[in-house]
């Protein structure tokens, strides 16, 4: 083997190794700017008032939980947190109650029209519901009630639950339900005692995805909620408007909003993808 070819072979090897390093590092280089805002949020929430508005910004400092203490002490943040939970859990429970039977029928009887109509909820801009709802709930005296908020959040949670559950029901073989019917079960009993228990893990996933999307909703509560029922995102938005520059407190409040959804995302990431891309196979 000549010196020259050995040399070029060596060069090729270094190039190959370099390329492999890049292939390993590149995904994390892309993720860095995606994750930076979360890191910055947590860092800012742990800073003192002075550190939070320091310029140039400080990256190393003595951490303090003062912001969290203040946010909860100076505002009824506990109430807002509870409001958020009540609304998200309420609408999710209602969505399961209404959505499970519908999803089961769509999966077993192939009602595409129904599935399509559920997708419409995704296309229509949220504000176009808001004007009528505002008028209706104002007339009925239901503004600033959990009922109004839970009902309106169904627009987010019902399609998600139905969509995800269609997939889960289609995944289980129909034979088991038929066998149960042969043994004297009615169809409804087969649904209740066979289909639902078999898709329980899927149901948990659907509940969590629906919870996240309802938790994240801002627009509906912005108009329909008042002092009593205000959920976290709206409360924190007001907090910013009145609170001027209190970045440590703002970052702490934002962290409180995000921590539950980020944890839940980690728990069921595969199903989140299904929820985010709901409807992609139809249409």
């Amino acid at each position, binding site marked *: 083997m000549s010196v020259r070819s050995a040399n070029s072979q060596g060069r090729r090897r270094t190039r190959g190794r370099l390329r492999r390093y890049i*292939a390993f590092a590149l995904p994390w280089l892309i993720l860095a700017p995606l*994750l930076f805002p979360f890191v910055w949020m947590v860092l800012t929430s742990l800073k003192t008032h002075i550190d939070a508005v320091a310029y140039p910004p400080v990256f190393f400092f003595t951490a303090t939980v003062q912001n969290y203490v203040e946010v909860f002490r100076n505002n009824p943040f506990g109430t807002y947190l509870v409001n958020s939970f009540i609304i998200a859990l309420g609408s999710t429970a209602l969505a399961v109650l*209404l959505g499970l039977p519908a999803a089961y029928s769509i999966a077993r009887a192939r009602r595409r029209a*129904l599935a399509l109509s*559920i997708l419409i909820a995704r*296309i229509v801009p949220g504000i176009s519901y808001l004007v009528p709802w505002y008028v209706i709930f104002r007339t009925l005296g239901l503004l600033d009630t959990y009922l109004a908020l839970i009902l309106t959040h169904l627009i987010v949670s019902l399609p998600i639950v139905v969509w995800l559950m269609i997939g889960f029901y289609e995944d289980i073989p129909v034979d088991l339900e038929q066998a149960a*019917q042969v043994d004297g079960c009615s169809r409804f009993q087969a649904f209740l005692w066979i289909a639902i228990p078999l898709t329980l893990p899927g149901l948990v996933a659907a509940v969590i995805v629906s919870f996240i999307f309802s938790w994240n909703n801002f627009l509906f509560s912005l108009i329909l909620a008042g002092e009593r029922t205000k959920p976290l995102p709206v409360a924190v938005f007001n907090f910013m408007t009145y609170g001027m520059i209190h970045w440590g407190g703002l970052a702490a409040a934002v962290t409180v909003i995000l921590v539950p959804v980020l944890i839940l995302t980690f728990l069921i990431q595969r199903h989140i993808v299904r929820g985010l891309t709901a409807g992609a196979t139809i249409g």
Partner: protein
Amino acid sequence: MPDGSDVLMQREPPQARVAFGATPGEGRPGGQYLNIAQWCDRHLFLILPIPAVVTILLIIALPLAYTFWLSANRWVVTAFTPPTFVGVQNYVRLIAGDLDFWASVGRTLLFAGLALGVQTLLGLGMALVFHREFPGRGLARTLLLLPMTATPAAIGLLWAMMMDPDLGVLNYFLSVVGLPKSLWLASPRVVIPAVVLVDTWEWSPLIALFCMAGLAVIPGEPYDAARIDGASAWQQFWSITLPLLRPVLVVAMLFRAIDALKTFDILYVMTQGGPGRASETINMYAYLQAFHYFNMGYSSAILVALLALVLGVSLMLISVRRGTEA
């Protein structure tokens, strides 16, 4: 509409029909009741969805119909007078005389167009990177989801803080690499690109997710053949990956286009349409008309226009998709 129970009936073994389909209820005490129960059970797939359908009609169809009706009325909620029917007057005013509306249409299209273009390119690039095996791929893919599941309103507040012209960390980064500071949300010219930046941070991963799903089902053979023929990586991408990915990519773009045209949360939290009206999209204009000026009728007309725009863009992209399938 085909009766759903028939579909299942055909697949059922004959015994099943004997088991409950042919059991006569009469002749027994409570036979009438049993008949009703049996009828219900046989048409179960018609009955089960009824609660959901009623709810959807109540919370989706009814409000939409009401919006259409209101758009033909003049109604200021605070005036304590009932709506007065004005026919198409709101639409005439909107289309013929309202420059603010047309400016908001322009801003909406600019925002959605910018967002869609940048996110499609970035998302496609991200998918190509994340499709390959690398250490920690599972964790990385989960982390990719975080911007999308994070509460948009909270994200908007967070970015507004980072974009502060005086003390924000983004301007600090700009100064570190020697670029001039930006006014970000305070500048009428930068505000839309700035919000597009946040939207891009939030939603590029969605396009990446779609594309990764598409890449996962592309077979290896075309690439083997191309390599034998001496095609470069770029040629392989251009003549194999991209054409095979196109249907998925179009669906991803459809999703993004719909959501980008409707963007509200981050815009409202970060700018409320400002500075001045520099970021007042159709959505924001309708919101302000309804809930700051209480012109419910006029706002409804704007919302119908927005709905038409979203539907139009959706249909356009769907027809593009049909074209790629044929």
